[in-house]
Every structure is written in C-alpha cells, then in structure tokens.
C-alpha cells in the first residue's frame, strides 16, 4: 500500500491487492499543485488496475471543489480512454455533501457507479438494532445504571466536562448521565436512525434539549480530534468486528488526559441457581453463537488488553453483577426472555441450527428466568467496566 498526504488532516492511499484507492480527512487545497502527489497516485493506480477500481471516500470529511474537480477529471479521462475500466465510488450516508456531489458522476459517465455505504456497519447489526428490542434495552440500562452511577465517577465522569457517548443506541444512558452528572456537553452518536429518533423523543419527553444526538459510524466519526474529556462506549466493542479501528477512533476524539470508558460482557459467566447446569450450557453456547457472527461477547475481561494495545495508560478495570435482586426480578426475567427471542429465535435459526439444539438452547434461558423468579433463586449477568487515560 502506498500513501501520500497534503497535511496530517488528509490521506490518500492505494491498496493494489483490492484495487481500492481511498481518500480520507479534510482536503481543501488552494490549487491542484498541492495535491499533485495524490493525483499522480490515482493515475498510477488506474494504470495498474484490471476491471474495477474502487474509490473509497467514506472517510472523506471535507473536499473543496478544487480537489473534487481534479480527482474527478482523472477518473473521467481514464473511463474515456479505457472502455474496459469500471470505477465504483463508495461514499458514506453519514457525509451528506459527498453523497450528493459524487452521486452525479454516473449521469456523466456510465462506467462510474456510486454506492452509498450505510446499512451494514458491522456483521451483527441487524440483530442488535431490531426495534422490537428497544423496551428491553431500556430495562437493561435501568438495571446497569444502578451500578454504573456509583462506578462512573471513579473513571472520570464529573460535572462540567465534555463527553461523547459512542454507540449510544436509544440514548437512555446519555439522558441518565445528563440528569445525574450535568456535563457541559454531551454528544451521543449511533448508526441506527430508528434508535436516534427514539432517543430524541425520549430526551424531549424528559425536557432535555442539550444532548447532541448524531448519526454516524463509530469507526469513522465526523467528530474532531481531542475534543472530549470522557468518551463512553458501552456494550459495543464486543459486537464490532473491527475493534481496533473503533478503539482508535475513541482514542482520537478523547482529549489528552481524558478517559475512554468501555463496558462489555462475558456471557459464558451468566449464572443462576437453581438449574445452574442448563443455564451455564446455554450461555456457553451464546458465546459461540455470537462468535459465529464475528462478535465477541466474552470480551469483558479482555478490556485491559484492548485498552493497553490502543495506547491508553492508567487503565482501571472492575466488574459488577446485575442480579434478579436489583429492583424487580421481573425486569431481569423480561431481559432474559428478550435474549431468548433474539438469540434462539433469530440468530440460531440464521446459523442453521437444528430444532433439537434450539430447544435445548431455549431451555437454558427459561431456566435462567426460573432462577430469577424463584423465591430462593439467584440469577446474575456480569459486566466488565474498564477505562483508560489518553496520555498527555
């Protein structure tokens, strides 16, 4: 792969193996001369390409008309000179101007097509963002908040700071943080428009108007570098397949001296009494099932390693157990019932599991519910909390 740059805010690269030329960052030159290296790289890339050249502008945050005309000129000239060449430009639905600007190119040159990347940011997204899951997500946050509200200050959350909640989902955590800790600014980002619409409605109903909800891809955010004192990313690292990329982005937007706070599970450690054996078998299978869809719901205890590898220092790790004795046991039972519905009813079916497996798989969830509602029972769901400081 070769790389050329106008400034640290702009990067052009070509990967010959996948025939992808990518542009990322902010590119606003005064003249074409300033981007001559990148233009030359694109020309050279085209010379070596057979069939389809992919031009990836998903991470292009800004590009002025000077640069747009220059790059487009190269692509158009190449298509006119080579009937065998096809150019596929991949934009992001997050960056509105880019989708519109590049979208015209197919009208000019049929050999150029434009694809908008928006629906599948990660492999398990369709399961996690099922809107029927929303009430359960609220219950889950209610249950974890009982613990996190006293844990968060130890990890750096305090009044008056600037905070980002990345992968905010339905936004209820941001609302609770706003009410309890009064940060000066909260940006809450998610890639589900349905979840964000719900989040805005909830915030309005609570009379909260100062949470900045934004649509975006957590692995390539429009947020600028070094902006936030506290960056939270809850229950999300475990469902992303590109974890290092996500951590790199969390690190990037965090201020030096600020902290990134992550929570994750280790599903095989969900437990219950009575019927412990059936419960344990099912949650071991949950871990394998998620792994099949490139998600790691065993990530919790690996948090320290991930944060260290991403460059954080002063790493703090702790865990807590959500149980049926936190508030109403029926809440716990409702969450497990929703898990059974999605994990056994949808994911296992999608994996192609036989009915007898699914029946046994379901039984473990039902036994977990039995334990949760049993007058002498105990049911638990462990969560790992970790935070790291971005070095100054």
């Amino acid at each position, binding site marked *: 792969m070769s790389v050329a740059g106008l400034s640290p805010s702009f990067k052009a690269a070509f990967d010959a193996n996948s025939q992808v030329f990518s542009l990322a960052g902010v590119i606003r030159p005064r003249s074409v001369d300033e981007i001559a290296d990148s233009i030359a790289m694109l020309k050279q890339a085209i010379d070596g390409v057979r069939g389809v050249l992919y031009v990836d502008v998903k991470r292009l945050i800004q590009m002025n008309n000077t640069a747009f005309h220059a790059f487009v000129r190269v692509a158009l000239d190449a298509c006119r000179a080579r009937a065998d060449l096809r150019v596929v430009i991949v934009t992001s639905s997050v960056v*509105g101007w880019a989708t519109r600007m590049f979208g015209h190119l197919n009208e000019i040159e049929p050999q150029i097509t434009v694809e908008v990347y928006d629906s599948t940011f990660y492999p398990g997204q369709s399961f996690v963002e099922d809107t029927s899951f929303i009430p359960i997500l609220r219950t889950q946050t209610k249950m974890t908040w009982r613990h996190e509200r006293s844990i968060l200050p130890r990890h750096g959350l305090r009044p008056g700071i600037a905070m980002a909640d990345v992968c905010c989902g339905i936004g209820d955590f941001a609302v609770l943080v706003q009410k309890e800790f009064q940060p000066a600014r909260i940006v809450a980002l998610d890639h589900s428009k349905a979840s964000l619409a719900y989040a805005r409605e909830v915030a309005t109903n609570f009379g909260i108007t100062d949470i900045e909800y*934004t649509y975006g891809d957590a692995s390539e955010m429009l*947020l600028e570098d070094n902006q936030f004192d506290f960056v939270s990313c809850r229950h999300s690292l475990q469902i992303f397949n590109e974890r290092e990329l996500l951590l790199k982005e969390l690190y990037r937007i965090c201020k030096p001296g600020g902290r990134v706070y992550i929570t994750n599970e280790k599903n095989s450690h969900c437990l219950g009494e009575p019927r412990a054996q059936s419960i344990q078998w099912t949650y071991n299978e949950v871990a394998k099932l998620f792994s099949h869809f490139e998600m790691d719901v065993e990530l919790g205890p690996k948090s320290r390693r991930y944060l260290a590898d991403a460059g954080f220092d002063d790493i703090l790790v702790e865990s807590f157990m959500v149980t049926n004795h936190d508030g109403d046991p029926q809440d716990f039972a409702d969450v497990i019932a929703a898990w059974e519905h999605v994990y056994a009813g949808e994911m296992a079916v999608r994996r192609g599991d036989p009915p007898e497996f699914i029946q046994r798989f379901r039984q473990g969830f039902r036994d977990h519910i039995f334990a949760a509602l049993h007058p002498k029972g105990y049911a638990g769901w462990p969560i790992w909390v970790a935070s790291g400081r971005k070095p100054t």
Partner: protein
Amino acid sequence: MDVGNSVPAEAIFEPLLQFEMEMGTFLSEWQHCDHLSSYLARMISHNRTDPVRHSNFFSSALNELLEVSFRSGAASGHIGLAIYRHGPIERVQITFPCPAEQVPFYREAVSKVDRSDAHARYLDSISTDMAPSRESILLDLAINFDASIRIEESTLHAVTLIVDLPLEGLVS
C-alpha cells in the same frame, strides 16, 4: 440589485452571528477558509437536530463561499459575514471587496443558477472544466445544497452574496 432565486420576502431571519476581518489579514493564509468555515459551522449547528452532520454539511458550503471571496483578488477593505436562521434555513450573507469590472461576472454567475438548465450546466462543468469556476461553485451550492442565491451590490467595489441553505431538512 437582486438577481437569482427568489426568497420569501416576509420571512424573518434571526441573526446568529456576525464576523468581519480585514481583507489583507484574511488573504494572508489560505487555511483561514477552512478554519473559519469549520469553526463557524460548529457554532451555529449546536442546536440543530443532528449538530455534527449539520456542521459538516454547512462547513462544506461556507468554505466554498469563503474560497470564492479569497479568490476575488481584492486585498483592501473588509470581508464581512453574517449568518441568520429562519426555521430549517440558514442564510449566509457574505460581503467582500471586488474590482468593479468583476461584478458583472458574479451577477451573471448568480443569474445562471436559477435557470432551468442549471443541472445540465453543473454536470457540464464537472465534465469539462479543468478547475471550478465561480459559476460551477455557485451551481454546486444550488444543486448539492439546495441553496437559493442572490447578489447585492452595495457599493461599486464590493459584492454581497446572500445564500439560503435549507440543510436541516437535508441532514435529518
């Protein structure tokens, strides 16, 4: 004198911010266009439905207007910028010094934005121009940002572009 798209005369635009800089200072650094557009966009977008994406979209349009001003070629006088809001629309009013002989070119460029062949002209400018002209930049604003554009000539040596950007609707 107004040329170009019509805007609702009865609309009341609330002032959001105003900014003025000596042209010589502005022209001392090309990056002023990028820095000003990013900073001002962030300031005015904070209470939009999706502040981050609105800011990104708005910055893109504002930067083009600042670059047009930068390339106007007049080093004396001031560049003035005011941003207003009416519902889902932000109005950018940008005034910059301009040699008198250049004014007709701006007037002509603005007039072309509102013509029925604007889309075809825009595609043609992408397809054939080696570098973007004033006209193709204004067409870009009209077509990709749904902007309405007017021009006012307050003095002999300055032009004012008034650009209405309905980005809230596009972002949401």
